[in-house]
């Protein structure tokens, strides 16, 4: 899951997937603005066949937030 998330995020940022960690910040470290994050979430929805409500997107601060949410969602 973590690797897949990083690979998708690397499409929206200059940072390489292998340089990302669970603590990497989307805004400060990856330079992803709110619209970049929304676009990445659309890719997650396609990749993992789930739906992420808009409100949850605003709470994503780190890659770990995304991974934990997706893992929780896929278990549920």
């Amino acid at each position, binding site marked *: 899951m973590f690797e897949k998330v990083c690979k998708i995020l690397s499409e929206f940022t200059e940072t390489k997937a292998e340089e990302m960690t669970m603590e990497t910040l989307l805004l400060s470290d990856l*330079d992803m603005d709110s619209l970049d994050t929304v676009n990445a979430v659309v890719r997650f929805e396609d990749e993992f066949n789930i739906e992420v409500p808009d409100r949850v997107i605003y709470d994503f601060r780190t890659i770990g937030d995304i991974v934990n949410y997706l893992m929780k969602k896929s278990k549920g």
Partner: protein
Amino acid sequence: MKNKDYPLYDVKRITTLKELIDFRAKESPNTAAFAWTKSGERIEKTYKELKSEIEALGVALEKRGVVNTKVAILGENSYYWILSFFAVVYSSSAAVPIDKELSTESIINLIKDSGCTHLIFSDTYSDIADSICKSMEIYAVNMKDIPSLILEGQASIDGGTNNRSNKNISQDTLAAIIYTSGTTGISKGVMLSHGNLALDTCSACSNCKFYGDTLLLLPLHHSFGLVAGVFVTMVYGYTIYINTSLKNISKDLLAAKPQSLFLVPLFVETLYKNVWTTAEKSGKAGALKFLIKLSNFLLKCGIDLRRKLFKSVINGFGGNLDTIISGGAPLSEKYIKGFREFGINLLNGYGITECSPVVSVNRNNYYKDGSVGQVLNECTVKIDSKDDSGIGEVCVKGSIVMQGYYGMKEATEEALADSWFHTGDIGYLDSDGFLFITGRKKNLIILSNGENVAPEELESLFDRVPLVKEVVVYESNHRIVAEIYPDKQYAEDTKIDSTTDSLNKSVSEINKKLPKFKQISSVIIRDKEFEKTTTKKIKRNTVGGNNNV
């Protein structure tokens, strides 16, 4: 049509929001006022249905005490959000739109500060609504109950009950309290009357004409989103397609086929960059660049083929887009020129919530790049305390100026000193009446020699330095400092060995063109981007000059 002055567009002068609804329901009853997609299906509400539902919901809310009071509205953009807003203001009450991205604590403080007795919330935010209800006495209505409230209200109307309080709505009736986010200082509740909002809307329409439907992308709790995104299109009687999730922007553009869009620079920049990203991915970037050169050449010869040459680009926006209005923050001229090259007229405007919010906008066929346009006919702008270049504080007077800050007498008196609203923005009017904004008064750098420098003016000079991604200029120890967040990707792509050396060289070039007192003394390079407000403006009070890096 040539870029030259021409008479204002003829627009009916509407003085209340109630009149706006009544007028449109009478003139275009069967035109869709709003449309949106739900579970893959397009849903529409005509202007006639809109009015009928506003009245029915208004009666149901009045039964629950919504009479001459204040009602907070919390939720994502939706038809029910808009319906709630109109039902509240149609019942002589004031709506208090809430920024849903604020923390629960901030939302509670804001609702307490505004003196709201009622809250209308979307189910998405029911947890916040619960916290609000636990911390204060307030009557809460979930938007998912609106259909049953409409039925209840309609039954009352059919039984002879009507909105009792809305007969007293006048131009001066308070319609909304909109909280300003502000890059510094505390939030202030800006009191806007029916007249403020309705007249600003009509006046903006006199400057700028819109044809066809729009897609609502801006958040409704912002005055620009509400006035430009909703009221302006209603004046013309077109359809407002509601984007209910930013995830669906591309799909909604294709579904709505908007002819006009009202955006903030973040959206403008993203849409523009998407054009190029798509072109690069499909290997057509080179061809696109060639077509732009060809088109620009043909334009010089008086041949305009842009809508044909860039049909595929325009189709990405639904196929009809010809006008974009940008406001809310400064916009780089690069995007204005870029969209114009595709045949889409991007017009920059200027506004401030305290002025309902639009003060000026470039006109469809009379515009100047770098300017925020011609001042609306409902207000007068004067430049206060001008310097030798005619630059000073932009002050506004007229029917669009707010009633005051809610519960803040001193702040109101200060802002409305000598009956002019002092915007705190620095700018000038040129000989053709175009307004130019050069900076913010409260960010002014006042040097020890008494000279004043607007940091934004210096920051704009970095627009032409591609290595600079973000920059904030401030004063430190009587020196002007430029703190820069460099574009690492650009440095990598162009194989720049030393970012520091390259930036210092650029600053030297900039300094050569500046008078001595404006020159930048030192450069600080930062690893992380600047902290932003929820409206994506850099929080200046957290940057170097304020000792909080």
